[in-house]
């Protein structure tokens, strides 16, 4: 046996040192305060002030003008179009996300990692390019342009174009949330349910979906936020026809460029409230799920 205890004089020396100066397990008080102040200053200048300025500018001409800007017919049309787009896009991309996550996490097949990368692709492409590809496909000079014109179908500079561009940009959100989670959960519970005689759909509804509900909700939340707020892709395909193809972010741009600042910030304040609600719901979902639901990137 080797005696692992240190010599007595060393122990005494060590305890004496600990009383004299504590172990350096954190920074000095001054450093801590300084770092906290630096972080808070940075967040103040880049996050909090931009947030406050939206509401300050929106209410600059009083609450009456604020309300009038929101019930103005073109603003209402923009709100309706934005909600319609989100209503179409979010369920489609949620269904895609569940199907993709099921195929990728419950089975083994070659090219799986490539598929995951391809699903991620819209995140790494500039939103402007996301809109442009559909102009190249469906625009007047595009690949299917003559065909569409002959049949009197309008996609670009019309609502279908806005919907497709938004589908492109928000495609990865739900899938990206579900794939890592379902990979970690494995297939045992589904196998058990199927062994006990459940059908495939019953397994999906009663076993898989309850297991993934928080991540699914989070993915839907992010997808919805981006679908409502998307600007670059939609700007390219919309044509900015006021009252017809302007979504809320585009309406903000049009009003702002017309120097109607208070009206622009009034519409912008609705989008800001949506963003704050998204963050609040995210915090609530994390609290419900007990862990950070996701470490995603948008």
């Amino acid at each position, binding site marked *: 046996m080797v005696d692992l205890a240190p010599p007595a004089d060393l122990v005494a020396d060590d305890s004496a040192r600990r009383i004299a100066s504590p172990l350096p397990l954190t920074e000095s008080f001054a450093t801590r305060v300084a770092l906290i102040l630096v972080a808070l200053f940075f967040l103040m200048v880049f996050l909090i002030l*931009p947030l406050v300025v939206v509401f300050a500018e929106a209410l600059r001409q009083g609450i009456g003008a604020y309300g009038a800007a929101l019930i103005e017919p073109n603003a209402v049309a923009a709100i309706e179009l934005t909600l319609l787009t989100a209503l179409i896009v979010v369920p489609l991309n949620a269904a*895609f996300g569940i199907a993709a996550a099921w195929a990728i996490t419950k089975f083994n*097949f070659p090219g799986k990692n490539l598929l995951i*990368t391809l699903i991620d692709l819209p995140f790494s492409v500039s939103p*402007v390019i996301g809109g442009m590809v559909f102009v190249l496909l469906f625009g007047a000079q595009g690949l299917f342009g003559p065909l569409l014109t002959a049949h009197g179908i309008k996609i670009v500079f019309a609502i279908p174009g806005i919907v497709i561009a938004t589908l*492109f940009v928000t*495609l990865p959100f739900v899938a990206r949330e579900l794939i890592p989670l379902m990979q970690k959960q494995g297939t045992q519970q589904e196998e058990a349910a199927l062994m006990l005689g459940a059908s495939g759909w019953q397994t999906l509804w009663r076993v898989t979906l309850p297991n993934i509900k928080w991540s699914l909700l989070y993915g839907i939340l992010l997808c919805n936020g981006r679908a409502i707020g998307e600007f670059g892709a939609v700007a*390219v395909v919309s044509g900015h026809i006021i009252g017809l193809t302007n979504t809320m972010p585009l309406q*903000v741009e049009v009003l702002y460029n017309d120097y109607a600042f208070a009206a622009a910030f009034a519409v912008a304040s609705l989008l800001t409230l949506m963003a704050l609600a998204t963050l609040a719901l995210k915090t609530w979902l994390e609290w419900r799920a007990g862990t950070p639901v996701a470490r995603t990137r948008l």
Partner: protein
Amino acid sequence: MAVHALWQRSVIPGFGLTLGITLSYLGLIVIIPLCVMFFKAADAGWAKFLAELTSPRTLAAFRVSFGIAFLAAFINAIFGFIVAWVIVRYDFPGRRFVDSLIDLPFALPTAVAGIALTSLYSVHGWLGAPLAAIGITAAFTPLGILIALVFVGLPFVVRTVEPVLLDFDRELEESAAMLGASRTSILFRVVFPPLLPALMTGFTLAFARAIGEYGSVIFIAGNIPGYSEIVPLLIVIKLEQFDYAGATVIATMMLVASFILLLAINLLQAWTRRRQGG
């Protein structure tokens, strides 16, 4: 029978259905449209390709976009690291509020961010006025682009460093301290090295996002060709002028840059996971 089925590769149904849906949906909405763009760019021919890419306006736009995006990602790496450190390691009033606010640039529509930052940093704005007093013009200059890109990239570094910092084994620090290391030496030789892959992943994510960013930049940039015009805006201008060939050529170069960055991000994330031993 049931016992026998357990030994099969998979008893789970729906492989054909879900993979079919995945591939056709992804193909229709992402893959085929992007391929069409590549064919259009190839259609333009080498002469057009070279002419477009060597035009002073395009070159200047690439310099502005990539240069400022790099600088913004660098600023985010430094301050994002400090923010992540402060949130994970220290306790202060409002810590949880600050933590949930970090994702604001993800959630706030870019056009809203654009007009808010412009109003804030314009000559008469809350922050623009004091800056103007010391002779700095932020809005409608490249500095304005930098401010917008720092805003947009802010969450990436914080959100990649935070989980690694949370999982960090504090016993390593205790051991180093017991062995007599000073705090500075513990930070630089024990704590920071394992965080480096996450920090670089966050930097690359912020950079990749910044070069493609459009909405938050165009309001504050002033958009002067050759000075404060970004590549995505140049693409939009070419499209509005029906110069589809020019737009596709520039977009193809952007896409190639995105692919390279995507590859770099995947490699960095693999490195992060290896360093975490997960």
